[in-house]
């Protein structure tokens, strides 16, 4: 299946936007202008972008603690995200959520989440709602290799498969749950194998190949929209940075990190696009400049935005 040039360039844009956003977050965190727990997605951009490229604004996603990439891929605005990280009133959550809780329900983003695995049944619920309301909407649930060991993984995916709900489970296997390598937290190599237990398709893809992710998730989304139920897609990938900013990473070697940096999903995609004749080096530079400009503007917006009033703490508890 040939992917339109416009689509490919749009995916490239989004990947670069995520990377530039997060590189800025690294600096702002180091400067103490962003506080709290910040989990970066650098190195995993192909998963969010390849998956979300199959969705429209009214489809749903559930995200994780490592959520910036999912949000941007789904259409989240970088200035409102940055303002949230700065704890400002103009942020997506009015400063109440921070990095781990950014959400934009208006475009189907049901939130980053500080509780590992929590999105799995929530995505099933969004898919159930789409089914009950008789729409063609689907939900994509992102979660990690670590999350595949939670109670929710079993209960959520079992429910979704028993009820043939329109949901796609996208497991980002970056080989670690904080410090614990996959080989020590589960007795299998491919998480996709678990699909068998639910009677649904299980697919392993190279999570650093955005086109491979796009195509695998595309098939699963089509299946979901046809009413045939969920798919479990495992994307093998790697986070370049520590679990969170400030993590000294005593559990992995520099060699391993360097090995994975060579498989960087953005340089790979860029090389491929150039090879396909879809993108010229000059255009790639232009996209990079454009994204840097956008992120600088996002920081400026965040800086200039007002802080919430302390009493706003008391608002939004009940509807």
């Amino acid at each position: 299946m040939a992917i339109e040039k416009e689509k490919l360039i749009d995916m490239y844009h989004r990947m670069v936007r995520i990377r530039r956003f997060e590189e800025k977050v690294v600096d702002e965190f180091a400067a103490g202008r962003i506080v709290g727990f910040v989990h970066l997605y650098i190195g995993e951009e192909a998963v969010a972008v390849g998956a979300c490229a199959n969705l429209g604004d009214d489809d749903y996603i559930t995200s994780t603690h490592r959520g910036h990439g999912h949000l941007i891929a789904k259409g989240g605005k970088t200035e409102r995200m940055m303002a949230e990280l700065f704890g400002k009133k103009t942020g997506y959550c009015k400063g109440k959520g921070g990095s781990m809780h950014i959400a934009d329900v208006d475009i189907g983003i049901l939130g980053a989440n500080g509780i590992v695995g929590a999105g799995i049944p929530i995505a099933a619920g969004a898919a159930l709602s789409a089914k009950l309301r008789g729409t063609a909407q689907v939900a994509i649930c992102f979660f990690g290799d670590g999350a595949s060991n939670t109670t929710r993984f079993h209960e959520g995916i079992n429910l979704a498969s028993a009820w043939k709900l329109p949901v796609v489970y996208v497991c980002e296997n970056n080989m670690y749950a904080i410090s614990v390598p996959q080989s020590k937290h589960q007795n299998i190599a491919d998480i996709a194998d678990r699909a068998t237990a639910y009677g649904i398709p299980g697919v392993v893809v190279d999570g650093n190949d955005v086109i491979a992710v796009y195509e695998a998730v595309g098939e699963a989304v089509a299946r979901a929209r046809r009413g045939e139920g969920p798919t479990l897609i495992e994307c093998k990938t790697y986070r370049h940075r520590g679990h969170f900013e400030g993590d000294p990473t005593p559990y992995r070697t520099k060699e391993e990190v360097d090995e994975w940096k060579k498989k960087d999903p953005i340089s790979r995609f860029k090389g491929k696009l150039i090879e396909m004749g879809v993108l010229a080096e000059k255009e790639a530079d232009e996209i990079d400049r454009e994204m840097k400009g956008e992120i600088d503007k996002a920081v400026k917006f965040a800086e200039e935005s007002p802080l919430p009033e302390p009493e706003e703490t008391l608002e939004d508890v009940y509807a």
Partner: protein
Amino acid sequence: MREITFAQAITEALDEEMARDPSVFIMGEDVGVYGGILGQLAGLFDKYGPDRVRDTPISETAIVGAAVGAAATGMRPVPEIMFCDFLGVPMDEILNQLTKMRYMFGGKAKLPIVIRTLIGAGIGAAAQHSQCLEALFMHIPGIKVVIPSTPYDAKGLLKSAIRDDSPVIYFEHKLLIVMPLKGEVPEEEYTIPLGKADIKREGKDVTVVATALMVHRALAAAAKLQEKGVSIEVIDPRTLVPLDKQTIIDSVKKTGRLVIMTEECKTGSSAAEIAAIVAEEAFDSLDAPIKRVNAPDTPVPFSPVLEKFYMPDEENLIKAVTEIV
């Protein structure tokens, strides 16, 4: 005397108890090579190895459930639930297994388990990593609730908790660890009995009962109030179950005034329980209404300006005291 940090006090208690009793073992997320998310277990993995310091999958239900099974069959597990907010996951294991088994079996089973977990706001960790949930567990008969405020107490109480034959939940305030709070701890071995409050500062005008981080804020407020001629007695119960009612009541008999300061949301908090006990058992000693200084009944907000507003502080306590003296 030498000074050590709050985290070191926890490590030392675990180290000494593991050395003393081979049935003591640790399991939890990132307790191994990582040494605990805030370094509370530094060095234990190297010393005791992967059998006794066990990294688990992200499976809180299995962590607490397996602790119940291991404890019922002769081991003394010290499971860790990284943040108390994650205790929602293994709640059945706590609510219906851990705290019910002994009673339901007519006193036959022994479940010597200490669940260690982090509480508290103050580091911008937001709504799902900052709660103070001690009252939830006070409400469940069958589990003891420990909440230390100093390295000395942290060590002595953890050692007693591990030796106790009943289930214990042990709360570590993350700000005390990351500050890091240092305090005097003797080289020699000691334990602190569960159920014995500590008077952190003697005074005669107002009794302030405080826990965890709030003990330090109460002491700071007490120093300021002293300058204004108001003498504050600060009591740290150290364990909420069992609760040393007598020390609190004796103090109220002396001062006639009580303020309770905890970081929990106000409704249904440990402060509410302590207020009820004093109202019930020492009403005649009170010269003024009981006051509570707590967080508001909201989730914990992220933005530092909101989080600061959310957390009870010295000013809040001084205001409450001023209203009743």
